[in-house]
């Protein structure tokens, strides 16, 4: 990769790790889909569904952000992939890269050297964000590829356009939390702090989305959670809802702008 820009340097440094992560991200959901025919059509799934139906609402909510339905491929994927593992795969990419954007330069002591070049600090923030967005999209595409190949290979009926829509939503969730990590990193110049804060906020938001609807008077609180905008509309069944996607885009843009402003104004750690 030619080292012509901060983005180019980020790609140069990160592509190997992202490629490995993408392979893992493609394999895992692919396995779920491949497994579905052996599980989904048998009496096993019927029993699972009966079992699920009997669980208390709070317990069900804890495990899934959408209706629990193990009898369709979409329902199965919603639970297995989009409810938990998918967010984990994408949040890890977004948060890790967002947190290390400016904070890693400062922690490693390379920020002075980089900023001695005629490049605005805000531009560094934007280019590192661009790398984070790029890699998030790459991982989402890898997941889609894994799901699509498995669906075709094992004759599972899935609307792959809806899978794509749900993955766009998932990628945006990862990017939004990458933005959160970016802001914290720009503020405190510590990578681990940025990772910890963004992860905590993601956990809180996850539970706000799943549990708030069960608490009388708190149902409306769901809208405070990016996880609601990610999956509240059940994009795997209904396709991507543009307004919900835009809410996540807004969070991401707000974070990047905040990070750029903060990093422009602060003293660089020496």
């Amino acid at each position, binding site marked *: 990769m030619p*080292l*012509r*820009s*901060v983005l*180019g*340097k980020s790609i*140069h*440094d990160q592509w190997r790790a992202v490629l490995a992560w993408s392979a893992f991200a493609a394999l895992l959901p692919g396995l779920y889909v491949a497994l579905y025919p052996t599980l989904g059509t048998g009496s096993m799934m019927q029993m699972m569904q009966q079992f699920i139906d009997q669980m208390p609402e709070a317990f069900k909510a804890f495990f899934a952000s959408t209706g629990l339905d193990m009898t369709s491929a979409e329902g199965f994927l919603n639970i297995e992939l989009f409810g938990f593992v998918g967010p984990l795969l994408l949040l890890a990419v977004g948060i890790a890269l967002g947190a290390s954007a400016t904070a890693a330069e400062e922690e*490693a*002591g*390379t*920020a*002075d*050297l*980089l*900023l*001695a*070049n*005629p*490049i*605005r600090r805000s531009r560094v923030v934007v280019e590192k964000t661009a790398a984070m967005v790029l890699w998030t999209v790459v991982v989402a595409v890898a997941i889609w590829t894994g799901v699509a190949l498995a669906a075709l290979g094992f004759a599972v009926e899935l609307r792959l356009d809806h899978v794509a829509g749900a993955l766009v939503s998932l990628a945006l969730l990862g990017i939004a939390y990458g933005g959160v990590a970016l802001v914290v990193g720009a503020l405190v110049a510590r990578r681990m702090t940025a990772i910890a804060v963004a992860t905590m906020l993601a956990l809180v938001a996850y539970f706000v989305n799943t549990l708030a609807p069960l608490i009388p008077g708190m149902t409306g609180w769901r809208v405070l959670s990016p996880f609601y905008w990610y999956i509240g509309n059940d994009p795997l069944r209904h396709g991507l809802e543009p307004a919900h996607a835009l809410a996540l885009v807004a969070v991401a843009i707000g974070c990047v702008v905040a990070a750029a402003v903060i990093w422009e104004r602060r*003293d*660089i750690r*020496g």
Partner: protein
Amino acid sequence: MTNTVIRTDRLTKSYGKSRGIVELDLEVVAGEVFGYLGPNGAGKTTTIRTVLDFIRPTEGRAEVLGLDSHRDSLAIRRRVGYLPGELRLYNSLSAIELLSYFGNLRGHFDRADAERIGEALDLDLGREIKALSHGNRQKVGLVQALMGRPELVILDEPTQGLDPFIQLAFYHLLDEIRADGRTVFMSSHVLPEIERTCDRVAIVRDGRLLAVERVADLKARALRRLELRFGAPLPAGAFAGVGGVRDVVVADATVTCTVVGSVAALFHAAAAFDLVDVLSTEPSLEEIFLTYYGDPTDAVA
């Protein structure tokens, strides 16, 4: 077109309780090699980082190449080469990759110039940075600061980690820059280095400017501690009254003394005896401060 390359006006940077810099007035003119001398922790790095806009002054302001250090920082950085005091490089790159990366960020990578400087410093540009020794990393830092012929070069402790042979090569590179009419601002905590390389020197201590001197003047007043050994014991009053010599102690065949400025008179007197060996020690910075500028606590007051 102003002749002033760096000007600071009551530049102050406070860090809570710890000392930064206090009301610093500096002026560096075009074409000179300007030394910035002070012990570790005197505020040298803080001054440089403020001038380059990495940190922002608490009070006062700085101008570089006639431009405001903060508002016009981008335009300034287009024309300045910089070596940080605590140099950290990207371990994921090779030396040549790092140099081309920075060259590209500056708009043009002058590979030939980078290779020329690397060669002068005896650096193999093809090597991975993570495999380089401290001294070789310092060379990479120097190459990136000097490549592309910047109008102003700001070097924070440039010779740390360099062996004497490479230091000499670096001094030759400074001579080249001087011959080009370009400007160098370099910090150091060793006087001989400043004496060897600079035209003028600012002396800083505890964040305050003690003096700005021409190096030639400083040399004329240079303080040296000498130990002369002779083949035979000397008479007690052997060096009494020799010009520029003080604190003479004659012990058997050894004479110790302090010399200000030229040693010619002392050596002339010594030639009358059987001189075997001479040991010269440079005074420490603390001693210089005490001798030239009085007690440091007075200087602050």
